[in-house]
């Protein structure tokens, strides 16, 4: 019941992840951050099997930062997405594959074009205008299909995200304890204040 959402707009990419850290039916933590920044303008959100997620994400983060230090240039979001796919694809055919689903959002440091990449544990890669992982896909993609436009502002993006989380609160059987929301713009990654306390009741 982990929720990952991503929305691109005119000059930004929004990434949101649920705050509940769960083990079986128990909520262990209500302030979990399921994202890691890979460099100044690329953010990755992850869900999946407990140990695998953070291990894989921080392995990717370390390699992205190593590249930045060695070459004094950051990899573009597209380059990082393909690197991550390669790592996940070789893991898939190993003895114990990583069971991790990812959303990779960023803004190109040169062209300032926002981008969002959807990756599942099979290492299927898809560049998308908006994306979700897990059960959230079934509730949110239809909302985003109807309301998303490629040239929305950050404010409109956050409103869209609220529509999605409201629907999730309404329909998911387990409370996901709100969302961590971050925006990537040409100026870097920024935390977004997001109201988690709003109660949404099913109609």
């Amino acid at each position, binding site marked *: 019941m982990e929720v990952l959402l991503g929305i691109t707009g005119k000059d930004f990419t929004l990434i949101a992840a649920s705050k509940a850290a769960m083990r079986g039916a128990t909520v262990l933590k209500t302030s979990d951050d399921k994202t890691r920044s890979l460099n100044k303008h690329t953010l990755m959100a992850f869900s999946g099997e407990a140990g695998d997620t953070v291990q894989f994400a921080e392995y990717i983060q370390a390699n992205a930062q190593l590249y930045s230090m060695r070459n004094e240039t950051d990899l573009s979001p597209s380059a990082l997405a393909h690197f991550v796919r390669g790592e996940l694809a070789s893991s898939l055919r190993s003895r114990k594959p990583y069971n991790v689903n990812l959303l990779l959002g960023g803004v190109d440091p040169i062209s300032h074009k926002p981008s969002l990449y959807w990756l599942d544990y*099979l290492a299927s890669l898809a560049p998308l205008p908006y994306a979700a992982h897990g059960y959230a896909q079934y509730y949110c993609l239809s909302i985003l299909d109807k309301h998303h436009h490629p040239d929305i502002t950050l404010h409109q993006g956050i409103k869209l995200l609220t529509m999605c989380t409201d629907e999730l609160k309404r329909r998911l059987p387990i409370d996901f304890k709100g969302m961590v929301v971050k925006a990537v713009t040409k100026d870097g990654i920024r935390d977004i204040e997001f109201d988690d306390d709003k109660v949404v009741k099913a109609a």
Partner: protein
Amino acid sequence: MSSPFSINGGACVAMVGKDCVAIACDLRLGLQALTVSNNFPKIFQYGEHVFLGLTGLATDVATVSDLFRYKVNMYRLREERGIAPRTFANLVSSSLYERRFGPYFVSPVVAGLDPKTGSPFICGFDSIGCIDFAKDFIVSGTATDQLFGMCESLWEPDLAPEDLFETISQALLNAVDRDALSGWGAHVYIIEKDKVTKRLLKGRQD
């Protein structure tokens, strides 16, 4: 239903015409019944007149297409010339058979023109590299049954490029409309001696 070949869905078809060939694919990427992307092309170019269509598991479509980009680049550096379609077909075959007991879950289709004679060449493969040579058409993906039916009824020998485009497009579009796992637009390539035309078909978006 949970066969690796039909998790993501997709369709591809190649046809022979008069001094030309055509190859076309749909654009859907799904997870079972859920459509994740409607812009996932399955045709890749490896030379002036060499094209590869890959259907099956999306991760292997990406892995295999990247692998052949590497292999064809290495071939070009070694031989100082581009790869011929027939040579490329044999490269595909042997590369897939290398993974005989842990295969890539893809069904490749090769289409191209012979660089010397200009004669059309198409062939298909199973996931472990058995080549299926054909002088009419090759189909692959989750809509193979439908594509066979469409191709058998629409295709005829010695079609001119424009007629071949119409034939392959109608064959693909009408086949994917009867397959829940394929569709959402198409790419069509018409390959002639000194011209390659790529067309994007919108198709039904439902």
